């Protein structure tokens, strides 16, 4: 199903919102790479939910709003967006940097949030186990970190990127560097505040994640003890690509259980 796309103007920022399906509201917050394509994962979620997939301001080729300096700014922007759209009972699914964003939003206000799913999330740091330096790694190194399946890695590396894709990837790389260059993909203060998250939380990881190691799944539980953890073998940093059915089922069951 092709999503409905709408450009929203919120607080001087332009935001592309993709929307598909009906049911409980699920908001997908994308990671550092942005949204390069409408994924099968989105199709499957939109079978059961009112799925919203925005480009964060400054991603997807949108201009950088003058107020955007860090993740806190982005978190407050989303709280404004929820107010503007009168969104309630939101089930947030945050991937990687989007998981970090979900946490930054929730520590500020959970009033409109019903549940949070963190997939291969960044945001905190285990000393000695840093998030991979995606800003310096070659495309080959990145693919090996992101995916577990050698066939998928080979296929991705064999694909020729169009000039538009390269432009988009470059823009998203710059947008994520603005927010996460240093400290790299974490907020040193976040773990002090994660106890404020009281809505249901589930954590999903790929056991072979080479970007953020699966040790982080347990680390997050230290700060959010009520979170449930699911780790898929044979999956890397994007379990919704390599374990599609399992990820859809895990997310959908959790959302239904907590709706």
């Amino acid at each position, binding site marked *: 199903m092709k999503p409905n796309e709408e450009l929203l103007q919120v607080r001087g920022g332009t935001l592309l919102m993709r929307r598909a399906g009906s049911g409980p509201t699920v908001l997908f917050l994308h990671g550092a790479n942005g949204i390069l394509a409408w994924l099968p994962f989105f199709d499957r979620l939109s079978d059961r939910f009112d799925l919203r997939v925005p480009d964060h301001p400054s991603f997807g080729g949108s201009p950088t709003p003058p107020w955007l300096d860090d993740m806190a700014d982005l978190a407050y922007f989303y709280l404004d967006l929820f107010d503007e759209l009168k969104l309630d009972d939101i089930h947030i699914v945050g991937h990687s940097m989007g998981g970090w964003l979900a946490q930054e939003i929730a520590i500020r206000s959970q009033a409109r949030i019903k549940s949070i799913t963190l997939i291969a999330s960044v945001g905190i740091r285990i000393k000695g186990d840093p998030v991979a330096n995606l800003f*310096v790694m070659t495309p080959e190194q990145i693919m090996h970190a992101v995916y577990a399946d050698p066939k998928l890695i080979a296929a991705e590396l064999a694909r020729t990127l169009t000039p538009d894709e390269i432009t988009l990837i470059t823009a998203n790389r710059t947008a994520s*560097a603005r927010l996460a*260059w240093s400290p790299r993909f974490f907020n040193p203060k976040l773990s002090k505040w994660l106890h404020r998250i009281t809505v249901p939380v589930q954590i999903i990881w790929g056991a072979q994640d080479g970007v953020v190691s699966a040790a982080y799944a347990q680390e997050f539980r230290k700060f959010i003890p009520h979170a449930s953890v699911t780790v898929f073998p044979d999956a890397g940093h994007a379990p919704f690509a390599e374990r599609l059915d399992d990820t859809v089922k895990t997310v959908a069951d959790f959302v239904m259980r907590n709706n």
Partner: protein
Amino acid sequence: MKVTMFHLMPYPRLSDEVIAAHDSYWVTMPNTYYDPKVGHVAYNQYLDQLELCDELGFDGVAVNEHHQTPYGMMPSPIVTASALARRTRNCKIAILGSAFCLREHPLTLAEEHAMIDNITGGRLITGFVRGVGAEYTVFGVNPVLSQERHYEAHDLVMQAWTRPGPFAFEGKHYHVEYVNVWPRPYQQPHPPIWCPSQGSNETIEWAAHPDRKYLYLQNFNPFSAALKYLNYYREIAQGRYGYAATSAQLGFGAPVYVADTDEQAMNEAREPIEFLFNKGFKMPGGMFFPPGYSSPSSLRQMAAAKSSIMAARKTVEQLAEQRVIIVGSPDTVIRQLRDCHRQLGFSNYVAMLQFGSMSHEMAVRNIRRFAKDVMPALQALGDKDYQGFEMPKVAAH
């Protein structure tokens, strides 16, 4: 034309095996390969070379800043410039440059530059640079904010040098409650400012602004790139700012090697220069061009210019052909540099006379030969030898 000897102070070469075993010559090349005894000798030989240039009548000597790499052993050009301050008598000392925006507190550099200017009685030239991309991986400074921080650090330093203190500087990246630098610079209102660059439209547009009119120095690029960028300076000055830029605002830099004959010069320069260009820039692309370091259009241009010197293995012949370097007999070198000046019109030539793995003996020979047989002809060049600038039909503005 003024002639300045520029030094990178490279670590005397690492073996090919070591370099091949690591994916970068920058940032992550393990410092266990650094031998302090080798470093001690190299530092002193390099300083000897620069002091010799002062004795031989060079107009200036120049040092620069790079971090965590054998490519250049000057994480602080302040240290080398200070060492030169009392051991040279006549030449300018150019710091090309200091990466003010890499610092959390650029005022410390403003103080140090002012000290050197005072000690030397006004022989300092201050270069404002942002550092190459790899520096942002070293310091963790956000490359997306590099340009902003660069401009703001510049404003802070210039105000510290020219505005009566104490005053508060209230910027976005730098907030200083008490700006009141002792000493003030010896040169009034401030030392000459140079902007060495790999070729960036933003840097040129900024340097050419009527409030600044800073010298823009194009370094380490094929001559065709130098031609494009130096002409862009004149174009922007005239088209956007409405004044004619002079050669005093432009500089050209290139490694140079002189010997009796062209053939001998090529053969002698081959090993050290091919080492520099084929090994010295080895690093992941993402490290060289970190996200947001330049605007997308500048990044594309820089990448194109750099890819021509970084992509494939380069030979001394190719580098000389593109005039990334100037190599030959005294006659050839004079002819080529005269031609560069005829087309570009610059007031300062920055000559790198030691490069890559070149030994001290060879560097001294090159310096002496260049000073005796080439430099006087260059120092005699002036505006009369420049073909002049013609505004293109479709000009930048």
